[in-house]
């Protein structure tokens, strides 16, 4: 099938999508602008060589499920709100976030397609008006949609997203190349790839620690306590030690390399962005915690996790009676956490309306 036939099929698909409802109105604009680009290529068919049209069509197919993810609106909204705050520290472009709920235990944040980077580079007769949003797709276990306390792995995944967006690890390979020659029996490419994969994990661990402290690494210790290094991941102990050194302000060559790389890339240094809110008094009374700052907003993930597991042991909150199961405690704590974040978001919107 020629790319031009596909293009006409996609033109119809995007025309239908332009009339659909979206969870985030920015997606309507995205679809309308993309439809304009499709119509442009259809009308200028003779001008664009087939490889250009083929590349355009491939990207349109790839963004299609990304768009559908926003129509469902099934993202863990409160967690997404907090992640966007963290993302704002690292990315200046507007971000379009869509979601993919999974039946299995899978978390990820991956870059969407580069469609709107491709359009200005290749469609020379099209006025793209400087539009170039960053596309993010969040994948999460469907069961955790209303369980923000368990969504802290998304901070680690956000770290990977920021790394890949700015190619921080690749920059680190340029700044501090792996020692060569590689060990006997290992190709140079395999050696570099191994360093890339390991450095990616260290960066994501440290990034996550900036926003949620040791929550992720503690989970790692529970899930994979004595796992040694593999081709794709460093040893658990090395990961935990690196995060602990960072949080304690102890010198660590891995942390120093990442900080030097961020400087070389013109990006901010990794720094702790959270404070631990003392939510016990409110949560004990089954009340939401009033989050006072962005730092507390990040900190509530670790604090609610800690509170939840303390209560499953001590059961000293007045609302936990003799019949309450661990599942009841978990549901209540997640509910209080979700509502605390939602209250902060509502207050922020209210302040923004009243000050504008």
């Amino acid at each position, binding site marked *: 099938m020629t790319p031009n036939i596909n293009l006409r099929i996609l033109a119809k698909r995007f025309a239908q999508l332009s009339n659909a409802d979206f969870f985030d109105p920015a997606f309507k604009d995205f679809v309308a602008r993309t439809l304009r680009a499709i119509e442009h290529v259809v009308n200028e068919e003779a001008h664009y060589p087939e*490889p*250009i049209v083929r590349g355009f069509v491939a990207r349109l197919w790839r963004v299609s499920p990304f768009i559908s993810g926003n129509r469902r609106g099934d993202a863990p909204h409160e967690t997404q709100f907090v992640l966007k705050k963290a993302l704002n520290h690292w990315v200046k472009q507007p971000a379009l976030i869509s979601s993919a709920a999974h039946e299995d235990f899978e978390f990820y944040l*991956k870059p969407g397609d580069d469609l709107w980077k*491709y359009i200005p580079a290749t469609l020379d007769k099209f006025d793209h008006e400087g539009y170039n949003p960053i596309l993010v797709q969040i994948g999460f276990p469907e069961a955790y949609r209303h369980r923000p306390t368990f969504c802290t792995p998304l901070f680690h995944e956000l770290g990977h997203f920021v790394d890949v967006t700015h190619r921080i690890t690749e*920059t680190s390979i340029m700044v501090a190349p792996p020692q060569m020659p590689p060990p006997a029996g290992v190709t140079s490419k395999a050696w570099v790839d191994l360093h890339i994969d390991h450095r990616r994990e260290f960066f994501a661990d440290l990034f996550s620690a900036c926003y949620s402290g040791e929550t992720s690494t503690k989970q790692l210790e529970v899930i994979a306590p004595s796992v*040694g290094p593999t081709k794709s991941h*460093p040893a658990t102990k090395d990961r935990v030690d690196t995060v602990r050194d960072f949080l304690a302000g102890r010198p660590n060559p891995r942390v120093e390399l990442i900080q030097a790389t961020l400087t070389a890339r*013109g990006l901010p240094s990794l720094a702790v962005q959270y404070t631990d809110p003392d939510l016990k008094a409110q949560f004990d009374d089954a009340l939401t915690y009033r989050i006072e700052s962005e730092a507390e907003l990040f900190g509530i993930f670790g604090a609610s996790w800690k509170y939840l597991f303390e209560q499953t042991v001590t059961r000293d909150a007045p609302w936990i009676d003799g019949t309450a199961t661990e599942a009841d405690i978990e549901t209540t704590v997640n509910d209080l956490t979700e509502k605390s974040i939602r209250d902060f978001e509502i207050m922020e919107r209210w302040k923004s309306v009243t000050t504008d």
Partner: protein
Amino acid sequence: MLAAVASNDDRALETFKLVLILSAQDQPASESLREYFSGVLDQAKAILEDPQNAAVGATSEAVILAMLMANDEELGTALADLPTEGRIERSAAITALSTLESNRDAKYQFANSGEEIRSVI
């Protein structure tokens, strides 16, 4: 959560490669595409020369390309020789494309043992 990052590395240089594909087919590339290509290649060369300073503000494609060029001599030579202005010869485009593809296709050549990996890392 503990899986390696889902990567779109294989696609990161697709737009860059388009100029080579068009040149290999003796088709013209638009000015905007040539500008994009030259921008990425020039930035990559600058990063190769001075990674501490030239990576500020460079595109992510340039960083990837610089890293590939630094770690694959054949690729580095094939790309460094390409003109950033004017026409790219068909044979030069085919060579550059083929080295980019073979670099992408190279796989890990490691034993699986964690101990062996720990011993070399």
